């Protein structure tokens, strides 16, 4: 145990560099997936058949490709097509696109859960589609969507470790590099696991808070 604390003190500062990148990848891809997910969901519920079908197809394609393959494609294949991305850019883009499909389905479920009478009331005072969404549907859907959204945040935090496969030196890769050069696998990966857990716990509490709040309504 004493050895662990000694190793922890030694490796902690290096692993913190990895934590910083993990947070950047997670927040970056979370924002991107939220934005894209909202766009796909809006297309799905737009009532315009072509947009709805396009969105459904996109979501299925994205869901059908493993995240790691998407990352490889963006990082290794895109340069052949003339688009070179840094590892960090490819990681954020890949995770953002991959998770946008799940976000879209989550948002769509939230939007479709809103009582039809709410939309009719908005229409009856002259609101158009977008105003109805912005002022009536989305503010109510947020409450429904937040608990699963929190779960997606936790999954994205953990899946950001997949960025290590395209050389982003986030927490998992930093751990692997230290372990392979020091052979202190137990200390390093215990520390890495604890650091992921420390970042996840506030998110888990946040999800619980969202669930409680949603349950009250």
């Amino acid at each position, binding site marked *: 145990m004493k050895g662990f604390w000694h190793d922890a003190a030694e490796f902690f500062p290096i692993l913190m560099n990895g934590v910083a990148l993990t947070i950047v990848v997670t927040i970056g891809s979370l924002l991107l997936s939220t934005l894209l997910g909202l766009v796909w969901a809006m297309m799905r519920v737009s009532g315009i058949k072509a947009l709805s079908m396009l969105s459904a197809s996109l979501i299925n394609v994205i869901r059908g490709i493993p995240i790691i393959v998407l990352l490889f494609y963006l990082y290794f294949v895109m340069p052949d097509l003339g688009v070179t991305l840094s590892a960090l850019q490819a990681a954020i883009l890949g995770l953002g696109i991959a998770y946008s499909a799940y976000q879209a389905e989550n948002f769509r479920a939230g939007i479709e859960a809103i009582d039809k*009478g709410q939309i*009719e009331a908005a229409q*009856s*005072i*002259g*609101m158009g589609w977008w105003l109805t969404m912005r002022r*009536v549907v989305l*503010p*109510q859907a947020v409450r429904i969507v937040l608990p699963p959204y929190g779960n997606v945040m936790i999954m994205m935090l953990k899946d950001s470790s997949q960025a290590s496969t395209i050389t982003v030196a986030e927490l998992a890769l930093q751990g692997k590099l230290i372990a392979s050069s020091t052979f202190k696998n137990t200390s390093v990966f215990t520390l890495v696991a604890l650091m992921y857990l420390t970042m996840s716990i506030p998110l888990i509490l946040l999800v619980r808070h969202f669930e409680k709040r949603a349950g009250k*309504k």
Partner: protein
Amino acid sequence: MIELSDVHKSFGEVEVLKGITASVEKGEVVCIIGPSGSGKSTILRCINGLESYDRGEISVEGLKVDRDAPSIVNIRTQVSMVFQRFNLFPHRTALENVVEGPLFVKKEPRAAALERGRALLAQVGLAEKADADPPQLSGGQQQRVAIARALAMQPKAILFDEPTSALDPELVGDVLGVMRKLADDGMTMVVVTHEMGFARDVADRVLFIDGGVIVEQGPAKSVLNQPQHARTQDFLRRVLHPL
């Protein structure tokens, strides 16, 4: 002001409206009565463009009602609707519900819209409930907020779709009182209702609808007190003397 000419509407195989022709004049109060499923609410929903219709024509102040045309927004700001289940926005306070349309559809200045919103809440007897959330209000209070929300659009007419059907009996009177005052002030109203007392006392005309057609229409007192058609007589007997 509102004209319906040979309006037909089907839901799948079921034809709900089978050629409705009627008109509502400015300042007139028209009550539509009839059994459940007769097409009463569908008429209101077609006038407001919440439902499309298959044949015939509906116009409001000469403007054709077409739910897919941009003009529908203009029609809806002229003809407001009050729903059976209130349909207040639960994430907004009573006052915010009332000023939502003026602020975001009509783009009225905020201060003026809020002032008028408060005045409208006072008009329906809910001045002190301006900051209450809809779930904190009784059904009758919610429906009165919904009426204030409809009035806030400064409509030329209001459509009421069974406005008291979802209320506890002791709360019905408050809502009908507000509606009666509106009628006295000259508001054009089309009311789908089972409140025969209200129809008799307040309506200028009553339409009795059954099976998607207007079976009988005329001055309220004459239709309700001396119905000519056997189906109207049977319906009124069942409603007024259920036992």
